[in-house]
């Protein structure tokens, strides 16, 4: 029996710690493949410490965690004192109110906070950018606060209430009594609450994702964007270090506590060593906080310009795989400008983010039909082409396009086609006859469908022989029916997740953008690309624009100009594998790309392609509705997002309680004997 117990315990620990073990082993692996350990290396750690961006993100996370913990601890302790002084009935009510944010699903808290911040920031204060460092911090305080209150309350209840009276009796004002006596009594609760708040803040993703602005991003939010591509092993190294840090922290805490307990049992006076250790810890914590604040101060104070570029995922060369790091190159050429990249998944997401307000971006790279729409809705700024001399390199055929007839708002970035990527190992060549391949029941469960309404309807329209820009509702309904018919066959509706799934051969057929298909074909030789010329296909252009919310228009134009430099454009295409609208860039591209028929199809093929145009607001909504209905198992309406009021209420309640605590301390005290 005893033996069985021991085995069970060991199994439990194995179960708990095996993921960490895999991560740690992976961080020391020489090979890139996590399934094979090839040799021991510290190279990933070296690379981690060379990666300024990653370290900055880590710094951001730690900074926000430290600050939010500090604020939560201060207000939480005050709030606990306030709640404690309430009558028992009220105390219960307030306690359950403060506990709600902990049990509330993060996603609800996140969305409602985001709504609240945008409402207050954009609606009431007329801020350009309502989501920023402050809102992120506030959000983290919101969920850190309850943990502190929850941990401090029991300590207050255990405390002999006469201690406060005794301190006041001996000459302490209520505030002094708090700092000289009560704080010592509740300290264990404050510390454990603080640690909980700290760890919650450090690893929070869901809430942060909704309240993060473009100026300050935490590590988990950034790491999320990595999941679309295999994570670089240096990230494993960082996680290993983080895990080690937390592990050591918890171990020390427990050891100190154990020593503290033993001290009490032995009834010996506090040893000198213990006192010194305590002081050291306090000192280190204080230094961390000060350094963090300085860091914050410095980053806030810099006179450099920050240029926010909002781009598709993996749509700009970043220095990996031997390509040029365009951001670094740009920052080298213009040292006063810092570029911050953030990513969106689809034109529709970009549109929603921009129209809901609450973000600041300077450069966006939407597709043709979306530019059409944004121009129509007056969301873009006119460009000053004086600042973009390299526009002259752009091929004539890409100037004055249908979506921007006078070429006032956009400069083309890339162009390409949408076709079918399939795995030759599993797909019979005889089946590759057109878009109907996407509906072939032979491959049920192995088909990936592109996850945005416009491209999905486009594919259905080409298959059914309709005009891609039709506004005929009967035709659109037919397309939706076609897509609904496809649903049981589809493994997943994907955008960037397509990479892993196709490369790992978890799916065999997918409709996607030619450039991305090229990238995947490099990783897996069995993949092939097919363009259904006879049925038609989408020919798209992505172009750089400056949205109305931009703060740094001139820097944005510098950036656009930089991207039109043939050398830069060529280097960029090497990474993203799309076609450049600048012919001169071909000279700077790798030959296989410049000559690839997938990237640059023949003229005759191109003529079969067609571009999407902007349909009216009404049709766009109609199509989106049909698309959601046809493809989504759980039909989530975007209109009934939870309101911001519950969280607002809780924040208000917590602040009131904190105020109450302050009143108890600073005001006159009345309590029943």
């Amino acid at each position, binding site marked *: 029996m005893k033996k069985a117990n021991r085995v069970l315990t060991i199994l439990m620990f194995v179960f708990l710690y095996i993921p960490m073990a895999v991560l740690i082993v992976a961080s020391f692996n020489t090979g890139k493949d996590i399934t094979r350990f090839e040799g021991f290396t510290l190279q990933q750690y070296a690379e981690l410490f060379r990666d300024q961006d990653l370290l900055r993100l880590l710094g951001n996370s730690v900074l926000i965690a430290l600050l939010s913990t500090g604020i939560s601890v201060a207000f939480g302790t005050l709030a606990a004192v306030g709640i404690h002084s309430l009558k028992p009935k009220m105390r219960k009510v307030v306690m359950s109110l403060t506990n709600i944010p902990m049990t509330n699903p993060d996603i609800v808290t996140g969305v409602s906070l985001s709504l609240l911040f945008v409402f207050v920031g954009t609606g009431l204060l007329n801020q350009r950018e309502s989501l920023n460092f402050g809102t992120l911090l506030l959000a983290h305080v919101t969920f850190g606060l309850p943990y502190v209150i929850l941990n401090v309350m029991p300590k207050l209840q255990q405390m002999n209430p*006469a*201690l406060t009276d005794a*301190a006041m009796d001996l000459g302490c004002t209520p505030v*002094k009594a708090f700092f000289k*006596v009560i704080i010592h*009594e509740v300290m264990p609760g404050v510390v454990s609450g603080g640690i909980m708040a700290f760890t919650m803040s450090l690893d929070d993703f869901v809430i942060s994702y909704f309240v993060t602005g473009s100026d300050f991003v935490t590590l988990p939010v950034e790491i999320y964007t990595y999941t679309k591509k295999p994570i670089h092993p240096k990230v494993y190294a960082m996680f290993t270090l983080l895990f080690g840090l937390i592990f050591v922290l918890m171990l020390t805490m427990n050891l100190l506590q154990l020593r503290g307990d033993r001290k009490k049992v032995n009834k010996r*006076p506090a040893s000198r060593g213990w006192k010194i250790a305590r002081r050291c810890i306090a000192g280190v914590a204080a230094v961390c906080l000060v350094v963090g604040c300085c860091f914050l101060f410095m980053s806030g104070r810099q006179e450099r310009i920050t240029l926010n570029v909002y781009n598709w995922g993996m749509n700009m060369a970043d220095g990996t795989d031997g390509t040029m790091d365009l951001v670094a190159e740009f920052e080298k050429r213009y040292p006063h400008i810092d570029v911050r990249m953030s990513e969106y998944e689809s034109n529709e997401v970009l549109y929603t983010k921009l129209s809901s307000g609450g973000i600041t971006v300077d450069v966006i790279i939407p597709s043709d039909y979306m530019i059409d729409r944004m121009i129509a809705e007056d969301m873009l700024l006119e460009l000053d082409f004086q600042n973009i001399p390299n526009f002259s390199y752009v091929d004539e055929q890409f100037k004055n396009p249908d979506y921007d007839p006078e070429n006032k708002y956009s400069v083309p970035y890339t162009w390409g086609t949408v076709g079918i990527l399939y795995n030759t190992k599993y797909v019979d060549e005889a089946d590759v006859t057109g878009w109907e391949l996407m509906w072939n029941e032979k491959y049920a469960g192995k088909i990936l469908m592109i996850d945005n309404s416009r491209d999905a309807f486009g594919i259905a329209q080409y298959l059914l022989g309709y005009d891609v820009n039709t506004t005929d509702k009967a035709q659109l309904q037919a397309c939706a029916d076609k897509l609904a018919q496809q649903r049981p066959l589809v493994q997943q509706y994907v955008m960037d997740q397509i990479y892993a799934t196709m490369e790992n051969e978890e799916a065999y057929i997918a409709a996607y953008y030619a450039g991305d298909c090229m990238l995947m074909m490099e990783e897996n030789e069995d993949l092939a690309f097919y363009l259904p010329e006879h049925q038609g296909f989408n020919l798209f252009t992505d172009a750089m624009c400056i949205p109305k919310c931009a703060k740094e228009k001139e820097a944005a134009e510098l950036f656009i100009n930089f991207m039109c430099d043939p050398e830069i454009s060529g280097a960029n295409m090497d990474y993203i594998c799309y076609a450049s609208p600048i012919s001169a860039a071909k000279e700077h591209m790798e030959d296989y790309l410049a000559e690839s028929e997938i990237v640059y199809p023949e003229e005759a093929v191109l003529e079969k392609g067609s571009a999407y145009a902007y349909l009216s607001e009404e049709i766009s909504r109609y199509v989106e509705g049909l698309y959601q209905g046809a493809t989504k198992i759980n039909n989530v309406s975007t209109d009934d997002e939870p309101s911001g009021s519950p969280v607002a209420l809780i924040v208000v309640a917590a602040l009131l309680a904190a105020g109450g605590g302050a009143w108890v301390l600073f005001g006159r*005290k009345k309590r029943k004997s």
Partner: protein
Amino acid sequence: MSKELIRLRDLTMEFDGERILDGINLYINDHEFLTLLGPSGCGKTTTLRIIGGFLTPTAGTVIFDGECINEVPPYKRQINTVFQRYALFPHLNVFDNIAFGLRVAKKPKEEIEQRVNHMLEVVSLKGYGHRNVSSLSGGQQQRVAIARALVNEPKVLLLDEPLGALDLRLRKDMQNELKRIQQATGITFVYVTHDQEEALSMSDTVVVMDKGRIQQIGKPEDIYNEPKNAFVADFIGESNILDGIMLADYKVKFFGRTFTCVDAGFEPNEPVDVVIRPEDIDIVDPKEGHLVGTVTGITFKGLNYDIIVEFKGFKWLIQTTDFHPVGAEIGIRLNPEDIHIMQKSEYSGMFGDYSSYSAEYDELTEDAGDGEE
């Protein structure tokens, strides 16, 4: 006696509509040892907390040295308190606990050291300064609490049932200790207890309280010998309380018999309460007794026997050093000075009948008193 230090005028205290104090009027002299005595919930602790400044009275005033201090917070009063369960600061050692008040007052370091060490001597805890307070026994913690309050040299020391948590032996020692400290320092003590013996043996003045009202104020001897009503008579020591009629001055009639007493000033034929202390009763041969009764119960108490004697259906408690077996017939004699006459009050008929007497009765009431407030 010396000059008046504290005066409570018409103090009333209400919590949630419940009246805890009902018109308390009391003055406390400088250097006095005054005890608030009463059962649980009588308002004695509330009175003490109002003096300490931890509660603000609903109505009435607290006057300290001639000034109203109703609105003065506790940390500005020249008053210190010894709390019911000591309320020592667990994170500080003995020395730091005692030094707490002096440090808050920002006294120079040498002075603090000297005064704390002196105080440690006064409470016989020399050499315990570095000890953790949780490692001390109850009595030692008690003395730290007293030292912590006294080191500030307050004008008044408030003690809220300070000996309640100690065992009997230690309690007796500490009673003497407290009295000694009070006399040595000359500080006014306001002492709260439910233990009448403690109150009588230590105090200069005893204030008996019940139901938020003062029942009697007086020297311990007066309180014992001349209780004002049945409540006081019963609460302070044991009493046989009987209904009687005051025929004239010095003449009282009960049990169908007229006795001579030392009380006067009542209306003719006024109904009164007659108090006879059990230790004042002389047992004589049945033939010589004013009254004759039968022993129905006997309890050995060490110093004496408590015997229950039935007189015409009414049971008395009599304390005697001689053994009288159950069933024995005895006679009693009452001298005029053994009979104390009280006016009828709301308490008449509630106390002084030993029909349901049992030996454990005393202890039961004491236990209940421990849980006070």
